[in-house]
Structure formats: structure tokens, C-alpha cells
């Protein structure tokens, strides 16, 4: 049994009378690739925001790398990397500069900074573009730079909110190859949300399906497919079974417009 790096207990977030995340309980092992699936508005982003200490929970608790998200927020922040759904690097700076600022904010020792940045650019296939303004990057390059920025300090857990939204299939494959390499090289635990079932199917060790703020299912892809019983099922059938037909859900205006804006910026 490997070490638990993320432990969530009854995590709940309410906005007024609306419960966005309802008593979520699950744990993730060190080095695992864990996917959080669900329709728009299912509570995936709210969950990630609580785990990255951006949003205080209304009830419940979570420990990331052994630290409480409510009492030890600064320790949690040191232990994690975060790639938000929206574009989080600055287009008016070069790729190198974007990395340099984060190297300094995460207290990388001065003499290691240059080496670490060079290594990160190389790992992400951006060596030739480090000196260019990010505003001139393609969508796939922006995402790779964001992942480089979020992993410069070698976090134990990397949170990614819809990491491949708005990317073309080739760029998506490249991003996933790099994420899998990150785990292989540094043992980074990956916790991500996605709409793309085929990504979850090919890359996740385990996944959870959220529906209306609650966890509807949890397990490996095979376990979930078997859970429906009676013959072979695809992951889409599993998704429809647990998350409904999704016609009633769909997120609010701000979520949807933010997601489309991101897709437009990256695409």
C-alpha cells in the first residue's frame, strides 16, 4: 500500500443556499494519476480550488502532502503546483521570464535557478522558444509552459483543471506524454479534471465521477465499467449512468464563458 498524499474528508462548499461540493470523501496515493470527471457545474473546479487553498471549505477537511488546507495553507502551497483552466502565464513576458519569476517566488536557491529553468524548458520542448514573448506561442506551447511553471519547484501534487481544453489532438497528446513523464521522473502525483472521457480512460489510474456536487462513483476504469453489471460497457455509458444525461446541468454563464475564452486563447 503506497503512501496517501491527498486525503479528503466530507469536503463541502456552499455558495448561499447552493451546495457546489457536497461531503466529498476520497484519498489519492502518492504517484497516482487521478481524474475527476463530471458535467459542467458538477463541482470539479470548486473542489480543485479548495484543495489548492484558493477557496476555504464550508465544512469538512482535506490534507495535501500531510498538511491541512485550512490550518496549514502555506505549507500546502509549497507542496503543490497548480495549472488553472484559464491561461495563467503572462503573454507580455518571455517564457524564460515567466519561469524566472516563479523560481524566485518558490525560493529556489539562486545558483540553481538558471539550471532548473533550462531543464524545465528542455523537458517541455521549449528550449528554442524561451526568449520569445509568450503572446506569440501556440496553444500547446502555452500549456506546456504553464506546466513547466507549476512544476519548477518539484511539487508533490500537481493539480490541473481541464489541462487539455481548447487544444488540438496532437497538442493534447504531447501534453499528456509530458505529464506521464513528469510522474515517471519525479514521482509527481497528478490530480486533474476533464470532460474528455478518452483521456481519463487512457491515462488515469483511478477516477471519480461527480454529479451535482456529490461523488457518484470511484474506481479504476475497469471497475467502473464492471459496476454497471451485465456485459461489456464503455466509459461513456458509465458516465451517463452516474452523471445523468447532463441536459439539466451545464454550469453557469461565467463558467461557460470562461471555458470558451480559454479555448479561444489556446486554439
Amino acid at each position, binding site marked *: 500500500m503506497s503512501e496517501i498524499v491527498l486525503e479528503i474528508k466530507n469536503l463541502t462548499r456552499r455558495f448561499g443556499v447552493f451546495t457546489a461540493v457536497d461531503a466529498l470523501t476520497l484519498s489519492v496515493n502518492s504517484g497516482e494519476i487521478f481524474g475527476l470527471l463530471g458535467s459542467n457545474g458538477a463541482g470539479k473546479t470548486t473542489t480543485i*480550488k479548495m484543495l*489548492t*487553498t*484558493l*477557496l476555504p471549505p464550508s465544512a469538512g477537511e482535506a490534507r495535501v502532502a500531510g498538511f491541512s488546507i485550512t490550518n496549514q495553507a*502555506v505549507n500546502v*502551497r*509549497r507542496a*503543490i503546483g*497548480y*495549472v*488553472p*483552466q*484559464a*491561461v*495563467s*502565464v*503572462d503573454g*507580455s*513576458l*518571455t517564457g524564460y*521570464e515567466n519561469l524566472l*519569476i*516563479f523560481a*524566485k*517566488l*518558490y*525560493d529556489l536557491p539562486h545558483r540553481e535557478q538558471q539550471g532548473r529553468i533550462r531543464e524545465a524548458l528542455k523537458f517541455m520542448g521549449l528550449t528554442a522558444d524561451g526568449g520569445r*514573448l509568450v503572446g506569440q506561442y501556440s496553444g500547446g506551447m502555452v500549456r506546456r509552459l504553464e506546466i513547466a*511553471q*507549476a512544476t519548477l519547484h518539484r511539487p508533490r501534487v500537481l493539480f490541473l483543471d481541464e489541462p487539455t481544453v481548447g487544444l488540438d489532438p496532437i497538442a493534447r497528446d504531447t501534453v499528456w506524454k509530458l505529464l506521464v513523464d513528469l510522474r515517471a521522473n519525479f514521482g509527481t502525483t497528478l490530480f486533474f479534471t476533464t470532460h474528455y472521457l478518452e483521456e481519463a480512460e487512457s491515462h488515469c489510474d483511478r477516477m471519480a465521477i461527480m454529479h451535482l456536487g456529490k461523488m457518484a462513483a470511484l474506481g479504476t476504469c475497469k471497475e467502473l465499467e464492471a459496476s454497471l453489471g451485465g456485459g461489456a460497457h464503455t466509459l461513456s455509458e458509465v458516465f451517463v449512468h452516474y452523471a445523468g444525461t447532463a441536459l439539466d446541468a451545464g454550469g453557469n454563464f461565467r463558467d461557460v464563458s*470562461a471555458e470558451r*475564452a480559454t479555448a479561444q*486563447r489556446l486554439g
Partner: protein
Amino acid sequence: MTATFIHPLTAFLEKTFVITEFELRKLRHDFTELITRALQPALWLLIFGQVFSRSGAMHTGNIPYLDFIAPGILAQSVLFVAIFYGINVIWERDLGIVQKFLASPTPRAALVLGKGFSAGIRSLSQTAIVYGLSLLLGVKLNWSPLALLNVLLIVVLAATLFSTFSLIIACIVKTRERFMGVGQVLTMPLFFASNAIYPTDIMPGWLKVISHLNPLTYVVDALRTFMLTDSTSTFGSGLDYAVIFLTTTILVFIGARLYPRLAV
């Protein structure tokens, strides 16, 4: 024991300057902003200043009207640019930049103060313009290094103060449309209820009271003291500095409390 006391403070300042560096590096790639900042003070000094100076309508004691308003226009131009600083933060929120910074271990107050300082340093371009124009218009400027240093310091502090105020508004209203509305509503009252273009002596009593609560008044008073050769401070530069420092500190504190709201 002192080490444990000094460490958090130096770490805080270090992070503040990293944020300032982040903001200022953008200028290296695109410095047009520094030029557009120059336009407004030029108009005020060359047109408004010249006309009012000829009319002789304002009684500004022993100093000519143009000399009187030169520091006022500098303060005004710092205010007008800084008060819209918050729009950048809203833009960074609509992207994911604010969220990424907030998920890093950087102290919130360093995020806020670092941005404020960068606005302060950007305002130095307006100082250069106002000094250049003043020289052209024959304003009697005090060129002693100590006086110049004080002017630079006050400009940086004033821009930090008003840009932090702007950031607080951005954290509260969160959208560009509402922010622009609030910004417009605030600038003119702050400007007119100050001693920037007329002395407080000629104000009606109620306005005088308001002007004494307005930090811009103390910024103008301090600038006037150090920029001109023969001007005396109304409040004393000690009080001016105290008001500016204290207001900035309080605003940074409030800003640090409100900044995480942008990630929600």
C-alpha cells in the same frame, strides 16, 4: 531571536520586489505606456495652467500660479493613472494569473505591495515630464539632490497608495464595467477636493474639511514643499509623510485581506 524576527520581514520584502520585477519586466517589451502617461500632464500644464495663470483669478501668495500648480499637476497625473491600475488585476483574474499567484506560497501583502511599487516606479516617467515642462515654462524648481530624492520618494509612495486603493476596488467589484464606473466616480472628487490646482484657503468650509481628509492634499503639499524653491509646507513635511505612509500601510493591509477574493 533577532534572526527569527528579521527573516519573515526580509522574505516579505524579497517577494514584494519579485512581484515588482514581474510587473516592470513587461515595460522592457512594451514601453508605449510610459509615453501615453505624459500626455495628460502636458495638457494640464500647457493649456489649463497657462490660461489660468494669465487670468490672475487665483491668489497663490508669493508664488506664481504656474509654479503653484506644477506639483499639483504631477500629483494629479499620478492619481489619474494609478486609480485605474486595478483594471489590470481584473484582467489577470479573467485569465488565470491571479489564481496561480495566490496558489503559490507568496504572502498576500507582498503580492499587493509589489504591484503597488511597480505602479510607483512607472509614475517616475510622469515626474520626468512634469519637470521638463516646468523647466520650459520657467517654474522655479529646487534642484538640490535631497529635494529631488524626496520628490521621487513621494511620487512612488503616492502611486503605491492610489494604485493599492484601486486594487481594493477591483477586489470588491470584480468586473471591468463596474470598475470603470467606480473609477470615474472617484477621480474627480479626489482631485477637486484637494489643493492641487487652488489653495485650500479659498474653499468653502465644508470642502476644506473634506480636503483635509484627502490623502492627495498631503501628497500635493509635500511635492510643493520639495519641488519649488520658495514654497513653505502647509502641514509640515513630517505630517505629510506620516499621512501618506499610514494610509498606504492600511490600504496594503486591506488589499491583502481582499485579494484572495479574486480567485473565487
